[in-house]
């Protein structure tokens, strides 16, 4: 992958690589609260079935994961674990923040023990709003992430460019 990391990969090759990455996302589930059950429905329920989008929700450890879905309330006590998880994941890595709690604190916006948004700790690619978001909303979030992956320059992640949202 030296070619990709150095940013010298030709355009068609990049497209091809992105296509491959897009449909083989290994998703690590970081279920923390109520939203985790909706995430469970996305994974476990035949009605939603995330695997049809090419997402594999059963990596054995964060070291194999491309995507982590932070779903639920992030507390100050939990933050160190989340940081450690994020550092363990290999690049390129993506984060979906699911639910109002993970986005901004949600109903606990004034609590003394809840972190007001997981984006204070790790960078987030897609925010899925709702309390809890319907399973369809998480699927939509994953589709958005896939769109983003297919359009991105893979080298940017290695270079550590700031992530621009468009």
């Amino acid at each position: 992958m030296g070619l990709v990391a150095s940013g010298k990969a030709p355009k068609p090759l990049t497209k091809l690589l992105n296509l491959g990455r897009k449909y083989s996302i290994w998703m690590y589930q970081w279920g923390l609260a109520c939203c985790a059950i909706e995430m469970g429905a996305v994974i476990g329920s035949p009605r939603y079935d995330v695997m049809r989008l090419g997402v594999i929700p059963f990596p054995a450890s964060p070291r194999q994961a491309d995507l982590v879905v932070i779903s639920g309330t992030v507390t100050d006590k939990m933050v160190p674990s989340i940081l450690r998880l994020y550092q363990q994941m290999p690049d390129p890595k993506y984060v979906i923040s699911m639910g109002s709690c993970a986005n901004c604190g949600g109903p606990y916006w004034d609590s003394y023990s809840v972190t007001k948004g997981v984006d204070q700790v790790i960078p987030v690619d897609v925010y899925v709003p709702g309390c809890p978001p319907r399973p369809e909303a998480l699927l939509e979030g994953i589709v958005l992430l896939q769109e983003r992956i297919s359009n991105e320059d893979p080298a940017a992640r290695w270079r550590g460019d700031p992530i621009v949202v468009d």
Partner: protein
Amino acid sequence: MTQLSSTDTDTSAEAEPQPDERREAWAARLADSLGNGYAEHHIIGGSDLWVRVARDSWTDAATAARDLLGCQFFDWLSAIDWLPSPFGRDMDAQEDNPEPKAADPMEQGHAGGETRFQMVMRLYSITEHMGLTIKADLPDGDLSIDTLIGVYPGADWHEREAWEMFGIHFNNHPDLRNIYLPGEFEGNPLRKDFPLLARRVKPWPGIVDVELFPGEEDS
């Protein structure tokens, strides 16, 4: 459908007047066994019983309730901070320097009380189907009380919670440390004078929604 009746679903036979007498009897028996440690009680007919005891009789009260009244079921234990909130009305932002107001008088609830902090414990008898709430005053200078672990082992975690949330010390508790909050947390969140910092930054909009919907004109 087969017969699904349970052994004693027959609640209609239980006419209402008895419970009050039963609660009076409970209060009387507790008062008997505690003697001077017993302060007062409050009964709401057909509904509930509150008993206040002295701090030193706290464990005795629990033992008596368990052995004499048959309250084997340990429901919960906690405390109440009766200080009126120094941050004004509930909905307001908690400003940094609230204007000094005339302090509201402290008012204790059922079964009275004299001090700011009060212990509350709830016990239940599964044979009598009746519960009671036992309270005890804690003097302001010395927030400590005996542990109930010897009577109800389940009190362990509840006491740790009360210790962390109110800063109440439990004598002879084997393992008094934080249960919820990270170790470096400062303060006792459930005390009324513990401010919620997020409210200082952004006040609560109010009881009615004041934000306009997109596209709506301000009239």
